[in-house]
């Protein structure tokens, strides 16, 4: 039941992205094209999504726990760091370059779009590269600590 629910929630998310126009790279790039002919549609996607969430999140979080899990896992971190800024900046460059972000790319893979398949494969490799980066960065940090203490 828990996994059926997750599947259906993913399906609703996909239909939302499709109706919203997020799976059409031209609409995404048209939104980011502030200096040219601007298509403000994506602002309405955000307004619709945030409007619904503002009401429903609050109602949901009044419960003691979620339906299928012990507790809600809401990020509590409020600290602005270099990784957040750098990561978001890098993400934006890729988003503007192809007009796909992760959700729409995966949905468009189901829609049989060749470029979306290519993009999604590259995106997964990018995520694996991030894992290697984190491992390398942690090791570098350890070495620095060792040097300092010795």
């Amino acid at each position, binding site marked *: 039941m828990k996994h059926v629910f997750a599947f259906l929630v993913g399906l609703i998310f996909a239909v939302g992205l499709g109706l919203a126009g997020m799976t059409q790279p031209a609409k995404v790039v048209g939104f980011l094209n502030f200096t040219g002919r601007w298509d*403000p549609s994506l602002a309405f996607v955000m307004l619709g999504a945030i409007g619904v969430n503002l009401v429903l999140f609050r109602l949901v979080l009044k419960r003691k726990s979620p339906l299928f899990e012990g507790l809600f896992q809401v990020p509590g971190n409020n600290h602005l760091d270099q990784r957040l800024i750098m990561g978001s900046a*890098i993400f934006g460059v890729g988003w503007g370059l192809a007009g796909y972000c992760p959700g729409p790319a995966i949905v468009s893979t189901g829609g049989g779009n060749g470029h979306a398949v290519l993009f999604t494969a590259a995106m997964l490799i990018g995520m694996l590269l991030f894992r290697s980066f984190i491992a390398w960065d942690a090791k570098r940090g350890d070495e620095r600590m060792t040097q300092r203490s010795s």
Partner: protein
Amino acid sequence: MDIATESFTPGMSALGGALIGLSASLLMLSHGRIAGISGIVGGLLEPGSKDRDWRLAFVLGLVAGGIALFFAYPGAFVVNIERGSLAVVAAGLLVGFGARLGSGCTSGHGVCGISRFSRRSLVATGTFMATGAITTFLYTTLVGGAS
């Protein structure tokens, strides 16, 4: 400002957005999780992660939704921009790496985070919209083929 009135779809976009919000709230209700696509997919790639099942079910739901749209509303997959394969691959790498480094993407930060008034998500969304706009400007200026 020059508005592209011929492609502007405020009603459909707001409706689609409302469904995205509904889905995010349902995931919070059922699993107590933020519907951040890059985080959900990234968790699938972590070795030894114990909660792969619901993540996989969610991603399969996304793909199934894509298949359903393909038959019911094929207009959802009109591309209408010219990008070479090399640009698409580079974009995918940057999006995958950047979303993980920045702990989220358009869904986790842009929709869920802003709905929670998260300071990190507000800054992240402002940042990726800015670099996205700069990239679009540079690409259309240097290479062309905006739409």
